[in-house]
């Protein structure tokens, strides 16, 4: 038996030491500008008990958190009183939801939206009443990511049969026939699912939308009619998506091989795009890189890189979500809610 243990351990060691687990992370050939890192001020750092929260929205007075495991839970953090309150959202109209983990919540203005792309359904209600009613939606209008443009119209990513891949569309539920799509927004590099994966976000006031690719250094900014305003590049050099997939059976495609995540969470706020990047810059220390999350800022009007700042995550976990309103950056790191004041002039840097 000892021989078995010995030989097995030797094999495992060989596999481990020759694997990518022992290699240093990739270092890009670009520089990051942390000039105003010292102006970042941490205001709040509190325990929210679970790591399954994400940010549904924020307004002047409160931050709203939704939850992946409990889709009807809303937690609010009031800035002034520093209090956390929890509410259970009630659905008027039916008792239970199939596959509730697909639900995503978004708060915009005084409206609360719960969106389920597979049912499919969109529920809407008012915050502080915490009840939602289903909006009329066709039974085959499936969607994947969805953001509300107005109480009745929504921008979403969906799987398009004609494009055989993801595409961006917009629908006005009040006028059922009002469905527009733009297959030019998302460009594929291989398959139509993983190679163009990314995050869709909407800017509340200017009503601009942006899509940031996960596996390549591109983002697209568009208006609410899906016209492309700007195509930009993030500062890393990964123009080709480092992701592979295989069709394991008819109609079922799986991610395979090692995938290279370039951009993580991204948010639009005022005239800037904030992108959490996964790529180490030439002027960063790789050991420190694992202890913080870096956010790169881009101007929406010219698509140019502005500056970067990092949020320390050491000992707390990973930055799983963030959201920006004015000069307030709210983030979820592990089981903690953090709030920072970002230098306000960041909003007006590009004249």
């Amino acid at each position: 038996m000892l021989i078995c243990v010995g030989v097995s351990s030797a094999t495992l060691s060989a596999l481990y030491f020759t694997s990518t687990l022992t290699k240093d992370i990739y270092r890009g050939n670009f520089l990051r500008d942390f000039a105003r890192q010292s102006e970042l001020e941490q205001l709040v750092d509190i325990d929210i008990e679970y790591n399954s929260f994400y940010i549904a929205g924020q307004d002047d007075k409160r931050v709203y958190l939704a939850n992946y495991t409990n889709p009807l839970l809303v937690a609010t953090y009031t800035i002034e009183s520093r209090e956390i309150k929890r509410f259970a959202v009630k659905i008027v109209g039916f008792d239970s939801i199939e596959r509730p983990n697909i639900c995503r919540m978004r708060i915009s203005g005084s409206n609360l939206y719960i969106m389920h792309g597979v049912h499919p359904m969109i529920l809407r209600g008012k915050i502080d009443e915490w009840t939602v009613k289903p909006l009329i939606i066709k039974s085959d209008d499936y969607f994947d990511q969805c953001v509300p443009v107005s109480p009745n119209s929504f921008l979403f990513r969906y799987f398009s049969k004609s494009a055989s891949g993801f595409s961006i569309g917009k629908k006005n539920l009040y006028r059922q026939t009002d469905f527009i799509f733009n297959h030019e927004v998302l460009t594929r590099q291989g398959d139509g699912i993983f190679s163009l994966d990314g995050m869709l976000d909407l800017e509340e006031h200017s009503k601009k939308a942006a899509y940031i690719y996960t596996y390549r250094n591109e983002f697209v900014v568009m208006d609410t009619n899906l016209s492309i305003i700007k195509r930009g590049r993030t500062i890393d050099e990964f123009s080709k998506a480092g992701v592979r997939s295989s069709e394991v059976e008819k109609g079922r495609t799986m991610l395979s091989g090692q995938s290279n995540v370039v951009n993580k969470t991204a948010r639009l706020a005022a005239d800037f795009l904030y992108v959490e990047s996964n790529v180490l810059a030439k002027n960063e220390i790789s050991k420190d890189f694992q202890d913080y999350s870096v956010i790169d800022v881009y101007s929406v009007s010219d698509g140019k890189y502005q500056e970067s700042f990092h949020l320390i995550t050491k000992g707390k976990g990973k930055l799983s979500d963030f959201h920006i309103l004015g000069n307030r950056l709210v983030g979820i790191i592990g089981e903690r809610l953090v709030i920072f004041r970002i230098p306000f002039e960041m909003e007006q840097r590009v004249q």
Partner: protein
Amino acid sequence: MKRLAINLISALIMAIFMYAATSKLLEYNVFVAQISRSPMIDRFAGYVGWAVPSIEILIGIMLLVPRLRLIGLYGSFTIMYLFTGYIAIMLIFSPSLPCSCGGILSKMSWGQHLFFNIVVVLMCGVGIILEAKRRETDHEELFLAELQTTK
């Protein structure tokens, strides 16, 4: 009593291996895709894809045949030790965890799977000790019996 324990252990391990092997083979492409996502063995994804289920079935058959049972137990001990070591290394060193198991076993979290594997490795070890001892005493009894008859 010891014989019962050995039979039970062998039967259980055989069942686990057969189940794991068939569920991998039934969804072969899925299994290979999952393996290709693992940082340590992605280079061998194709080989591991057919080798692991084949070895599992082979060991399962060996456990059925009394003469090959001890070899089967050594084999299952080694394989389970390898699997357990792999899970342990991934849990400690890997930033992300792909899932690459079969059937019910894939419903377990990586931590639960580690625990399950350790239990099976220990079971194999116990099986080996009991079976080796049993063969020894059987040979002794056989030897003594022959001694008696030749007297």
